């Protein structure tokens, strides 16, 4: 009976089914099939026996992560940074999107959007070079300027605290344009009649934003936030590695799971241990997203992911 229904649905909505086909193929090929590689985390891998034939290692591959006592600090850093990025990025992306939607001059709007979007395409390696040329102690732009005006120099690379705002700003620089476009699209989708009605009632611009725009883009916000919670255990490796220059002096506040794992295994090439670290991140991300989804379900059952 159920099968009949599915067949019927396939026939009835064949265009829609056809439309999700490419996405489904990609997800199955790129995500579900490689997932079997998770077994690597529990294997003592060698080339001869391959992924499935290598001997089992139990949980031995996970040990290195906890050996150095850094597991907690890097996990904490990863989560805190992602929360900070998420909050700051979302607030600014939404604000900029609303401001842009209120501006009527088309050319200005287009130029601003493009300029903000541009950094999204700049490689982290290049951003890392910018940062180095800004903060280098002897020849960096900042110190050169400070020397010119007769002020003392700053040594940013040996000052861990400085890196928290730097990383947040850099993340903002890269991602603000991308998010803004998403939110802008959802602002534009709000029914203009609502604004007209508000005008008739004599609402101020702030009232319109608060009571029409913000509630209107709430579904988009919730979905985007839920999606990024799924990656909260993954530090953006390129960003942390390149921007900080893998600087040993600031690791206390700049080390995230991904950079820590890379450094530990750089000379070893242990596929099993790398997979173990990946699995650790994925399992925690999965739990977090389930919890977040559950929380959203309690408050706004309509906006959940699943």
């Amino acid at each position, binding site marked *: 009976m159920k099968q009949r229904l599915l067949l019927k649905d396939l026939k009835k909505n064949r*265009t829609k089914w056809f439309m999700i*086909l490419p996405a489904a193929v990609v997800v199955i090929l790129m995500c579900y099939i490689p997932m079997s590689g998770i077994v690597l985390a529990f294997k003592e891998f060698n*080339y001869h026996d391959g992924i499935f034939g290598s001997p089992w290692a139990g949980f031995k591959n996970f040990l290195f992560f906890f050996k150095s006592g850094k597991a907690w600090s890097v996990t904490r850093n990863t989560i805190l940074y992602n929360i900070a990025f998420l909050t700051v990025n979302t607030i600014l992306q939404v604000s900029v999107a609303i401001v842009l939607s209120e501006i009527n001059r088309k050319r200005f709007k287009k130029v601003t959007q493009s300029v903000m979007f541009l950094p999204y395409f700049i490689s982290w390696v290049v951003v890392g070079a910018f940062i180095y040329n800004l903060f280098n102690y*002897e020849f960096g732009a900042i110190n050169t300027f400070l020397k010119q005006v007769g002020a003392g120099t700053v*040594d940013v690379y040996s000052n861990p605290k400085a890196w928290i705002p730097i990383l947040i700003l850099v993340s903002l620089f890269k991602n603000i344009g991308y998010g803004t476009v998403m939110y802008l699209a959802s602002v534009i989708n709000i029914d203009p009649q609502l604004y007209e009605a508000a005008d008739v009632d004599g609402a101020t611009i702030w009232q319109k934003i608060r009571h029409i725009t913000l509630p209107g883009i709430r579904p988009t916000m919730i979905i985007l936030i839920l999606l990024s919670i799924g990656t909260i255990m993954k530090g953006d490796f390129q960003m942390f590695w390149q921007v900080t*220059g893998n*600087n040993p002096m600031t690791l206390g506040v700049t080390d995230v799971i991904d950079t820590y794992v890379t450094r530990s295994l750089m000379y070893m090439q242990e*596929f099993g241990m790398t997979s173990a670290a990946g699995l650790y991140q994925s399992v925690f991300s999965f739990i977090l997203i389930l919890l977040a989804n559950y929380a959203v379900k309690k408050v706004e059952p309509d906006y959940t992911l699943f």
Partner: protein
Amino acid sequence: MKKWKQILSCALTAILVTGALTACTGGGTAGTSASGSDTPASATSTPVESVSSAESAPALEEVVLTMYLLGDRTPDFDMVFDQINEKMKEKINATLDVKFLGWGEYEQKYPLLFASGEDFDLIYSADWAMYNSQASKQGFYEITQDMLNTYAPLTAASIYEDAWEQSKVDGKVYMLPMNYKELTAYVFFVRGDLMEKYGIDKVESIDDIETYLQAIADNEPGMIPLDVGSDFDARFLYDLFWQAETAGRLEKVNPQQLMSYIATGDDSATVFNETEDPAFLSTVEKLKEWKDRGFWSKSAVVNTQNNRESFAAGKSATALMNINNAKADYTTLTQAHPEWDIRVVDAQGTAPAIVQSYLANGMCIFSKSKNPERALMALDLMRNDEEIHDLFSYGIEGVHYNNLGDGKIELTDANENYPYDGNCNWGIRNDAYWKSIAGGIPNYDELYDNWIKTAKGSEYQAFTFNNESVRNEVAAMGEIYTTDMKLLYLGFAENPEQDIANVQTKLNAAGMQAVYDEMTRQAKEWHDSIK
């Protein structure tokens, strides 16, 4: 109408996606199918001189062997290899298809080659380029004495016994290491024009270097006296100071990331950490003093440019490098900047030069190679056929170099298209045919004579540590090596004594003792076995 448009766009997306996917997978197989068609069946007419002792087939089937090297393909590389292949084809009816792994990516791609099941036969390897880690994961084909006798008789006759012994991992040989004794010694480059400017008559010792660096630090605000700190040179100065203090009483045990030493003459082979030796504190203190005097950048730990590049760019006044790099740099730099009047200064001081392990360069056969015997035959020729060895090492005679006789050659202008000893030919270097460049560093002979008198290798150079039972501890220690230790190697220490104690606490927490216990056991076993 609208519906049609929808269907069309869907179909287009589907085509694009499948196209992208097949393009990705197609790349992997293209390399194998493209082979073997350039010269048709001449298989019957090939006499096999070098393997005449082998009873294997009277005529060898034609094969194309894929060989991976490190570095970048130089402009004339294919031209040189066309000639090599011509000779190879004539002698063993095999040709080489060479692929490169660039310096920037080889650390990631090298292990992937083995894991992805790509079809290749030969690959460059070295103790610093993953020989041990890949060998212990069965990535390489085992080379036995029998195989050597049958398929590589020239190598069997010429290979240094030490080299053969050193390449053993768990008693099995997976590599043909270079047949070449390499000396590692460090030199400073200093600039004569700056010496003159600040009234320094001579720079010959470490103390003179100190004076020179101080003069630069005081007077040249636009220059960094010595721009160390990149992954390439972060521990160069440390090594010099440390070796000067510990030569003759400590033996280094590889790998470097485990910071392990054994006291010279200690038959119990007890392994300990370098930080536990009193000389470590004095070395770090000296480095800190130099760093505080501004001899290198306060941002040195995030430096991505190595000191050779900085020196060449005129950003720094001194360069520190090993003699092999120095030979190449000296020639190019004196041509580009004759006004600098570059002087080459011995940096070894009282520290003896190091005779490199033979494993510093070598060639391996892939464990899943379809033609391991033929690969071995090809290696035999590359190592021992003078013509092929010379082509690979120096390029084409008359084009890239001129032979002056007496083991000396002269480079031509075209040499930059196939640099001397710069095409990852290091794994097949053979002392019997080695030729050096005439000219170059003026005081080279004097320097070399000094070094060769005292040069020695570590007693445990040939020992290879199998880390299987302590991999987690090794990973944790490796992490400390790249962070806390790197800071100390560059003199970044607020309070050396305290910082060293902190590192020791971390190392102990990481399980250092377990690693050293295992290492001591293996080292003792190895030590007893060679007596």
